[in-house]
């Protein structure tokens, strides 16, 4: 959490080697919601899925320690991993959802490394499932789900049929700390391993990253005495 983000010397991305990775905060909230639904006996089984290199199994184990029943690790590494984006992940999730006959997919609203906010929406589109994104409240009512969504104008309540895709927003819940007994139990839970090819997904990216730069250093501000001075200065530097 206290690691400084550094851009690679070739400006192709940020340095990830040796940086400790942990579960995306919004995904923690998604896992918590799924586990809560299971504790209320509204869903039968929670499967934790992650796409990436070997290290992601640690994150899946954390999800298992929070209460998920089993895990699936879709192995993506090397150049495929560097190029992997929401579209590829959505295809993987869509294929898995069909294979597993899932009734709900719950994800974090966005990942805090790329801030794309696309995977949930794309997954729903690929499956032609309804979506309840930016959820701050989820209530299952028979075959339907009532979702309160945080939108710019306030809160929007929708009712969608299952199977559906939900994305978790900040205020949906407060994720639990894994208890020590659950960490012990997580050891025995299974994590299945597969590759995108096993699901018939091609990982070719339609997006090419041209260049990554650090944001410009923030310059010191200038204090002015009067509103007239402010307007004059804004005019002079072309802002207005």
């Amino acid at each position, binding site marked *: 959490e206290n690691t400084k983000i550094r851009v690679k010397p070739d400006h192709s991305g940020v340095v990830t080697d040796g940086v400790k990775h942990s579960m995306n905060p919004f995904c923690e909230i998604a896992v918590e919601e799924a586990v809560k639904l299971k504790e209320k006996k509204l869903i039968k089984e929670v499967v934790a899925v992650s796409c990436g290199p070997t290290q992601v199994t640690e994150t899946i184990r954390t999800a298992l320690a929070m209460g998920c029943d089993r895990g699936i690790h879709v192995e993506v590494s090397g150049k495929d991993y560097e190029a992997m984006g929401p579209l590829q992940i959505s295809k993987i999730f869509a294929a898995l959802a069909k294979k597993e006959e899932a009734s709900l997919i719950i994800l974090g609203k966005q990942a805090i490394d790329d801030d794309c906010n696309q995977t949930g929406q794309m997954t729903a589109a690929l499956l032609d499932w309804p979506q309840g994104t930016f959820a701050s409240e989820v209530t299952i009512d028979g075959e339907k789900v009532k979702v309160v969504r945080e939108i710019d104008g306030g809160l929007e309540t929708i009712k969608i049929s299952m199977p559906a895709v939900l994305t978790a927003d900040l205020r949906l819940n407060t994720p639990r700390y894994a208890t020590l007994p659950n960490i*012990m139990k997580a050891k025995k839970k299974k994590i299945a391993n597969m590759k995108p090819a096993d699901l018939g997904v091609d990982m070719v990216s339609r997006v090419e990253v041209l260049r990554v730069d650090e944001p410009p250093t923030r310059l010191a501000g200038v204090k002015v005495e009067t509103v007239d001075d402010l307007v004059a200065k804004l005019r002079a530097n072309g802002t207005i």
Partner: protein
Amino acid sequence: MNNIAALFKARKALGLCVSGCRSLSSLAELPEMHQMMRQTCRDYADRELGPIAGKLDKEHLFPGQQVRELGAMGVMAVEVPEELGGAGMDYLAYSLAVEEISRGCGSTGCVVSVNNSLYIGPILKFGTQKQKEQWITPFTTGEKVGCFALSEPGNGSDAGAASTLARQEGEEWVLNGTKAWITNSWDASATVIFATTDKSLKHKGISAFLVPMPHPGLSLGKKEDKLGIRATSTANLILEDCRIPLGNMLGPRGSGFKIAMQTLDSGRIGIASQALGIAQAALDCAADYAHKRTAFGNPIGKLQAIQFKLADMAVAVESARLLTWKAAMLKDAKKPFTKEAAMAKLAASEAATFCGHQSIQVLGGMGYVTDMPAERHYRDARITEIYEGTSEIQRLVIAGQLLKEYAP
């Protein structure tokens, strides 16, 4: 023949054995479950304890809510089997938990350690099944904590001189005397307490008892105003014709001293872990400051004087940590660990006071004021060289074990 005998003696002296070697290699990388457990405790300490530790210290507040949350996580009874309500993990996991919690708040780490090692520890080892269910299970959730009453106003290190008396009257034990320096006293719901049942047998005449708190005949002295770990309560326990059922004796009559010593052996690993957490927090504070504070045109971390301090602090902490892990792993492997536990407690407590001291030095004037946590780490560290066996006692224990190994 002499050479082979000498070889075996040397092997024994070096403490080598097959499974010992296997577990030593795992010191390089902790098992996955332990890493996860450590991370959970670290997250909890960073988010829930760090932000309030200063307030708890300033206002002498017992972290009741945090203790309940830690109980729910299983941290208040790490080694207790699941059937009794604990987390069912090993002593290495317990050591990691105490270190991470102490890093967030030294006082909270102390409460965790006392409950696990000093209160639950002896009952788990020497109690009957009925005693375990009655006196351990309610103390696993964080709703109740226990304490350990051995020291008296007249004897700390000299534990064999216990002057608290227990006499049998019908179906009851009647206890009289005073215990001193009892951590958790004002917040505890029970105590493991030591009293003399047969004065003529000297230290073999001491027995251990379980007393609920509050209880008629047991009163608490004033809360001590301490230099550090101020969120814990420390006070005298005063027993005046305190009556308890016969079934409240812990272990066989006369085994109290043995129970106390064995309990303290394990407790030392807990305190070593607490000291490690405080030392690490002091090091974190100093290293962070070294990046930010500039003097003579550069961050002070560029100056060798500061670099040498940070290096010395890091070596002190890491070496004490490996000693602590080794002691914990020997205990988990059911091998003798008295010497290693004493070494760990000695090394870790001296590392904590060293790091606390140097951390203030790195921060300069800023280290002396309460705006930064350095002064609290300095104050919290000091007790670790005193309780659960002073550094002087640890040296005696280590020397005793060492000389036994080299005996002709």
